[in-house]
């Protein structure tokens, strides 16, 4: 479990405009612009796959309302709990 990153970031390449602000803002420098172009002709941001702390800097620096979703590792105690957090409920309801 200790090798698992604390956070995870999901970037929607359809929504990303490739401004690069998230890449610049990421404290652990785990975001990059994809070498390939998206269908809009920009290099969308992508997660390198490791190092995310779930700090949310990329989310707040991103000008698109829904391009970035940030997740954080569920603490084991809470993961085992039978009662889901309100946030989880809200998220599941939108799935």
């Amino acid at each position, binding site marked *: 479990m200790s090798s*698992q990153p604390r*956070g*995870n970031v*999901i970037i*929607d390449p*359809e*929504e990303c*405009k*490739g*401004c*690069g*602000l998230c890449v*610049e*803002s990421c*404290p652990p420098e785990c975001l990059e612009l994809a070498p390939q172009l998206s269908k809009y002709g*920009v290099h969308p941001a992508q997660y390198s796959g490791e190092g995310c702390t*779930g*700090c*949310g*800097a990329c*989310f*707040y*620096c*991103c*000008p*698109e*309302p*829904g391009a*970035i*979703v*940030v*997740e*954080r*590792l*569920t603490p084991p105690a809470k*993961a085992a709990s039978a009662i889901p*957090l309100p*946030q*989880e409920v809200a*998220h599941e309801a*939108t799935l």
Partner: protein
Amino acid sequence: MEGYQVIHEKSPAFYDNYDRKAEMQHQTHYCPGCGHGIAHKLIAEALTELGLKDRAILVSPVGCSVFAYYYFDVGNVQVAHGRAPAAATALKRSNPDSIVMAYQGDGDLAAIGTAEIIHAANRGENICVFFVNNSVYGMTGGQMAPTTLVGQKSTTSPWGRRAGNEGLPLHVCELLAALETPTYIERVALTDMKNIMKAKKAVKKALQIQKDHGGFSLIELLSPCPTILKMDPVVARKWVSETLAKAFPLGVFRDRKPELPVDAIVPHLTVAEALGVEEDQSNEPVIRRHHHTRDLTVKIAGFGGQGILLMGQLLAEMGLREQMEVSWLPSYGPEMRSGSAHCHVTLSHDRIGTPLISQPEVLIAMNELSLHKFASSVASGGLVLYNGTKLPEGFSAKQARVVCVPVSEIADRLGSAKVANVVMLGALLEETECLPAETAMAVIETMVKNPKMLALDRQAIAAGCDYVDTQIEIGAVSQPDGYSY
């Protein structure tokens, strides 16, 4: 992902899809790296966190953020350039439970809307103003704004802004903080995580203040405009923090509840007292005399001085007395100073959607010019009442019935050209039977104090009714049956 929980995602205060256009409904229209998206995000989150989404009304400005109503799933109003604080005032005062936000850019708020923001702040309106300052006019292509820095080039200051010629940048927060009435004023910058978090706190605090009926708040958000500044988004953001924020220092300029003198009790007059009429004290249910009244849309046109607008007011006032819904929309503008004048009157038993009438059922043309100008707009099967003995040569209105009533002549015969409009009112009432003539007299009695004029008005109404009843005859109008088809 398995074992992870979402901590940041798109706020439910945004629509799922932005149906501004058929394509690309998942993206905002803002340029890459634009600060508006971040400002939107902070507002949406604060609304959600405070549980205010369903009470919120966003007033969109003119500028790049003119389309904010495509993004926010709240009540939305888009207003004329710079007028957001005035519209927000009206919205808040008429819906005190709502949370009203004016969202404005620097061209909108600090240039054309200077008067509105200063007076809204000075009244201490219980609204939030989010002022996005990017130092230029963005949407129109980068002209100089009041907030443009000294030396900064723009399309209208190609050699850079010169203080001696264009003045110094306008500091809105400092300006408003000089007033007694605002509650909370802060300047923040959308530049990096630290400052964006400060901005988020400020936005949320402003909304909380409004929720607590705390008064006026303004948050100025320094924001990058990479397109107009011709900079890479990252560089533009750096420019905001290193250059713009130097000229516009960040910080809290006001954070206290204003201590205003407690006003003396406002003298209260009832509507009846103010108008000098007796209030109906009876609690009996109002009897709607539907059989005496009918729905009608009327356009009254003529030249200034003929009592065009007054005739409209009389008609509307009559409708009110008969418990109808009414509207009266005068034409404003240069035509008010002689030349042509017109007004629209709607009489209705139901609620009225708009006071503007594009196809009136009745046109009252008090002169030939108005007849030519508006006759074609009359609804099919409608009526035109024309001030004249016969129609002008070559005139025809195929879709409407035209009745000629020489009201000016009749009024002259009665002794005053001034009552021509009242004669026409009598003719209208007789021809359309939209309202009883005695209601007209009741209204006129409350407005005219001079007994001589009152007698004349009484004669005028009767003369108008009488003419329509008895005088419309062969020769008066172009058709043998007295009508022109």
